[in-house]
């Protein structure tokens, strides 16, 4: 369970520039949430609070009853292994193959070679990249790159997936592929939080939609949300 309690963030210690302003939010386990809003509305900031890349200026971000501000620095990597992240720019390593990009996430967390060789092909199979194990990112299409990024996010079997504009660099067909994959992951019990400015994507998902503007939640449609102005 995720809870935002009256959360405010400021830009670069300047209290006059608020990014989020008094955000209150409650997300149940297994939910699929779409956060929609224009660029600069605070969507990415909301996600970065969950990975503890930043701390709120005011308020509390609570995950499973634990205030994230109370987590010691040494425990942050463990928190991040519970949360998979996917980004618009994929953040793949161009000098590594698809297999190595996923294996890399396991290596830096101390997994042994046996575990890596068992798990990586399985996860690449789940995202439909079984035949691309040895391909480098530049040999993959945009949609394949994003599926590879999702595979990497899934490798630690996270309870939460944060997707920040995952369809931003994709055409319509690939965007729907990625969204379908995220929905499939959600059906298996993983909480998915998708930040996007793409109304078509949100409407296609048809689940809870939170609209955010100028750092404030302006609408929270709990069931079968459709973004309508």
């Amino acid at each position, binding site marked *: 369970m995720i809870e935002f309690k009256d959360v405010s963030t400021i830009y670069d210690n300047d209290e006059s520039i608020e990014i989020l302003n008094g955000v209150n939010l409650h997300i149940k386990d297994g939910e699929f949430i779409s956060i929609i809003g224009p660029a600069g509305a605070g969507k990415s900031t909301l996600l970065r609070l969950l*990975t*503890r*890349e930043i701390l709120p200026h005011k308020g509390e971000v609570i995950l499973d009853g634990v205030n994230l501000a109370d987590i010691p*620095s*040494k425990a*942050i*990597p*463990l*928190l*991040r*292994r519970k949360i998979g*992240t996917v980004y618009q720019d994929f*953040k793949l*390593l161009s*000098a590594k193959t698809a297999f190595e990009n996923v294996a*890399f*996430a396991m*290596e*830096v*967390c*101390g*997994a*042994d070679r046996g575990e890596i060789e068992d798990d990586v092909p399985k996860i690449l199979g789940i995202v439909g990249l079984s035949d691309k194990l040895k391909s480098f990112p530049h040999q993959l299409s945009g949609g394949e790159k994003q599926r590879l990024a999702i595979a*990497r*996010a899934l*490798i*630690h079997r996270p309870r939460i997936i944060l997707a920040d504009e995952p369809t931003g660099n994709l055409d319509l067909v690939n965007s729907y592929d990625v969204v379908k994959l995220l929905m499939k992951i959600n059906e298996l019990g993983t909480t998915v939080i998708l930040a996007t400015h793409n109304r078509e994507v949100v409407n296609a998902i048809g689940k809870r939609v939170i609209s955010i503007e100028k750092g404030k939640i302006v609408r929270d449609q709990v069931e079968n949300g459709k973004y309508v102005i």
Partner: protein
Amino acid sequence: MEDLKATTKRVFNVGWTNFKRNTYLSMGTTGVMVLVLFLFSGLMSLNYLTSQIVSSLEEKVDVSVYFKNDASEEEISKVKSDLELLGVIKNVEYVSKDKALDEFKQRHAGDTLVQDSLAELDDNPLQASLNVKADDSSQYASIVTFLEGNKFRSLVDKINFYENEQVIARVQAISGGLQNWGFLFTMALAAIAILVTFNTIRLTIYSQKQEIEIMRLVGGSNWHIKAPYLVEGGMYGALAAAVVAVLFYPVAYFISPKIESLMPGVSLIGYFASNIIQFISLLFFIGILLGVTSSFVAIRRFLKI
């Protein structure tokens, strides 16, 4: 989960992969560290030469104590043993009246005027003396004060310290200046060398910024992220030390005779050859320490959460 052996293996493998992945950048970083270590070697040579200059100057300075003619050998011997007990004396040499005369005659063997004048004298006109060498030229003043004390006043005729005082003060000023300025110069160059190395390694790590960012996002612990970069920094240092060790000795061999022609008895190659194990170990120690420390400081910036 992996054990310590597997972790260490991974850290070294990744460090080595990072090192060889970007050949030009790695060679550039190693090249800068080679220059830095050459600078350190040059400073070590300079310190050695400075210390040789200072000790040869100090070697030339001594104080002679001349005794009255009625002072007996036993009394002079007592003065000698008392001086040795001071704990600041390097060497005291007793020169008897007869020995002083023999030495004087030898020095002026070709001078018939001096030889004839000496032959005309019934007595030996020279005085017995003690030639005193102190451990440090700054200690002569206290030795003279000791000799001028009441205990020996009746025996001592004169001390040539006052004639030599200016020379001694000058030697002290030169050695002090060489040591102080040499130390400051070494520290300033060492600081520049460290800054250059640090910035070069930081640039190298900056080129791997995206990889570090991804490692943080997927939950890599700081140790797992940091360790390969520390190994990489250490590898730059070790390779640079090996290159300097190979190049330095031929350079020292080439310039050593030129230095020896200016400063007879000072052999640069002899000094480094007799200390080869210590010198190469020191090069590796400084190189690896510099590389690892620079990597450690550089990567901290990218690990801020």
